[in-house]
């Protein structure tokens, strides 16, 4: 199809804010019949929000949406479906207890007399769709137990069942093996031949170049580029995904780098990460970069002993840690600030003081009873040192702002006088001012000889703070860059599996 057909669906200047956060702006996108369009961008670039707007899951609060040239407003996923738009989300949205056929036609069962469901027609219809997709699946089988790849096929069959002309796939290949990706691609090509439009979201650039005709690049919540794939190179695309200036917000001070404190030796957890080896020295900040789902948090969890590795081990200052024993890891001197502050880092309903001293209850108690005087004294000491902004120490931790909550988590670990501090997304959801404070703190801690391992999805943070950058891609270390040689392109290339950045 070379002549520009009218778009099946089009977004013009679409915008969406969550509170003060502008998740999407300048959302311009058109999907034409017979087009497979890539949607690429870093984590948090606004891809998911754009997809949710198209799928009727969230309502845009600015701009226009057109279906077949007519302005529309979706109030629910139902409306998007009626407009012929199907979204295949990353998370499976199927009903495990029901048959494949019912999953496909849910809410739109073929009806017989008296509005009763015509099961025979339903199974015939769905079996026909499955055969058309060229897969050997039985429509009467329950969905429970299907592989992710087969579940995606069921989702595609669902889209075909209501003759969706627009199919949006949010990272459909993330969990698929090679042959499964090939099968998915042949289905996508088939759809293209039938005049459907496909929006294909993937972090794997080689796939984008293999299957897509056009590409939309997003950055910082905005669509920054729309072009034919033929007119782009992977390098081009990476540049446009990154293309922002490094802010001077991240002041890592130079610190004397000492002996290795944390050594990770060939750590492996089947199906999650493989053969991970690295070390972090005293006074050093090492960033673990990569895309969401690359296995970074899982490595951190294994180091701290939350998950049991299948192979490999961890050493702290030359002493080998027993696997899967968080208490032993704590005693050996590891502090772990988890990604999800609200669920894993803090007990939101407990007081600030109790949260901040939770790791020290042993030394604060006498005859098994915690003395609140001692607890408050220790908490006040740390609150002062970290410049915590609070009203009263016995307020629940949930009262604090995100940044100050993170300080309480930090206080909790710093009170144990750790040798190694692991920080998983330390500044996620924290406002800019407090972010800088957390960075200053990290820098100061490294200056005092702490070994810091930081997981971060924010490239400026990684590049600004880290003495060394380790990059993971699909469970493997694909790059190690010293401060001097690390730049955005190199990190992104390693994180997307573009192997040009050889491990150094």
């Amino acid at each position: 199809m070379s002549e520009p057909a009218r778009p099946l669906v089009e977004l013009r200047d679409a915008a969406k804010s969550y509170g003060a956060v502008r998740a999407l702006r300048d959302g311009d996108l058109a999907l034409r019949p017979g087009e497979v369009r890539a949607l690429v961008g870093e984590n948090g670039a606004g891809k998911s929000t754009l997809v949710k707007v198209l799928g009727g899951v969230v309502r845009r609060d600015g701009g226009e949406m057109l279906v077949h040239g007519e302005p529309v407003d979706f109030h629910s996923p139902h409306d998007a479906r009626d407009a012929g738009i199907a979204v295949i989300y990353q998370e499976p949205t199927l009903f495990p207890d029901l048959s494949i056929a019912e999953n496909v036609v849910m809410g739109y069962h073929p009806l017989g007399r008296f509005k009763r469901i015509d099961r025979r027609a339903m199974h015939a219809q769905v079996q026909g769709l499955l055969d058309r997709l060229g897969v050997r699946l039985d429509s009467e089988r329950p969905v429970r137990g299907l592989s992710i790849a087969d579940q995606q096929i069921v989702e595609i069959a669902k889209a075909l069942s209501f003759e969706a002309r627009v199919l949006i796939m949010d990272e459909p290949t993330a969990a698929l093996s090679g042959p499964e990706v090939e099968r998915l691609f042949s289905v996508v090509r088939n759809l293209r031949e039938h005049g459907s439009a496909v929006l294909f979201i993937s972090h794997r650039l080689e796939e984008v170049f293999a299957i897509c005709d056009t590409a939309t690049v997003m950055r910082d919540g905005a669509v920054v580029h729309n072009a034919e794939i033929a007119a782009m190179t992977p390098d081009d695309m990476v540049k446009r995904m990154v293309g922002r200036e490094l802010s001077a917000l991240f002041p890592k001070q130079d610190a004397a780098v000492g002996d290795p404190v944390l050594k990770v030796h060939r750590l492996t957890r089947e199906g999650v990460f493989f053969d991970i080896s690295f070390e972090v020295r005293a006074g050093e900040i090492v960033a673990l970069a990569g895309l969401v789902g690359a296995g970074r948090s899982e490595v951190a969890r294994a180091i701290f002993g939350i998950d049991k590795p299948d192979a490999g081990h961890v050493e702290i200052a030359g002493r080998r840690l027993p696997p899967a024993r968080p208490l032993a890891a704590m005693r050996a001197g590891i502090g772990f600030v988890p990604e999800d502050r609200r669920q894993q880092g803090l007990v939101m309903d407990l007081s600030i003081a109790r949260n901040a001293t939770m790791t020290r209850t042993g030394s604060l108690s006498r005859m098994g009873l915690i003395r609140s005087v001692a607890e408050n004294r220790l908490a006040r000491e740390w609150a002062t040192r970290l410049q915590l902004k609070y009203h009263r120490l016995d307020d629940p931790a949930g009262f604090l702002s995100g940044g100050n909550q993170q300080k309480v988590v930090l206080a909790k670990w710093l009170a144990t006088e750790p040798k190694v501090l692991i920080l998983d997304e330390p500044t996620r959801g924290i406002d800019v001012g407090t972010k800088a404070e957390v960075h200053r703190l990290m820098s100061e801690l490294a200056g005092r000889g702490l070994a810091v391992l930081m997981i971060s999805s924010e490239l400026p943070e990684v590049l600004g703070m880290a003495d060394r950058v380790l990059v993971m891609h699909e469970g493997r270390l694909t790059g190690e860059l010293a401060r001097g040689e690390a730049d955005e392109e190199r990190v992104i290339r390693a994180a997307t599996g573009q192997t040009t950045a050889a491990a150094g």
Partner: protein
Amino acid sequence: MSAHAAPVEGARARRLTERVFRIRELGIVVALLLLIAVTAVLEPRFIESDSLRNLALNASIFAILAAGQTLVIITRNVDLSVGSVLGLSAFLAGDLLSSHQGMPLILVFVLGIALGAGCGLLNGVLVTWGQVPALVVTLGTLYVFRGLAFLWTDGQQVNAETLPDSFLNLGTDSILGVPILVLIALAVVLGVGQWLRDFRAGRELYAIGSNPEGARLAGVRSQRRVLTAFVLAGALAGLGGVLFTARFGTVDATAGTGYELTVIAAAVVGGVAIFGGTGSVYGAALGALLLGTITSSLIVLRVEAFWQQAAIGALLLLAIAFDRFVGVRVDAALRRRSARRAG
């Protein structure tokens, strides 16, 4: 293309799923027959027609409540207030008929069912719009509705002699040898069962319980459906209340106390998964019949009351263990099947 191979694998998978459902409901039937047989050997009077008739009569009201409860549980909710709703509606029926002798029975039924539906609507609104977990909402309304019943009755009770005979006959008369009460229960169970099996709205209840977020994304109007389930459960509890009065004649504020637990137990024994998504009304009704029969047979065998409760508890645990066992086996079988196909 590969369509030729599909039917072979298909037939096998189909047989497996069908078998599981049959096993589940047949299992209860077999347990029921065994129980009756063993009791009959020890005490032959147990299978006299009067005794069997009583068994069916006792199970009828529970079966109606269990049908309503099944609707709610399938959506991953629960309704603990059904016993109290039954009490309210039972007293309403008794009060209306004893104070207005000439009132048409059909009107009494309509009012009783409407009262129940109203209670269900309150539960449903709090659960869907209020976003409060059903366990908490219905635990609250369990006490509220019971409290209202006590306020309303003011310590009074309705006696059988003040009720019209035409009404009381509903609880005792038969058509072609089958008690009217049992016929009503059968009609309700079949009606609700078919609705759940063969109508879009019914299938959407399963979808909601199986994956709530998925149901929303599939365009299912979940709130409306859950609300419907609660209203129907309430309405059926209301119907149960009117029938309770017809059967027992004497009603006070405590009518139906504790029924909710028996009803939930019946549903679970009958194969309705407490986390939603699976189960049928037929299974729940059979569960109600089984629980009732156990109680009766233990009474007939002059087993102490304590053991009756223990027996029901044991049956419940047995049913859950059985479901778990079968569930694990089926999962493994389905996984193996997928693997074989892929390989």
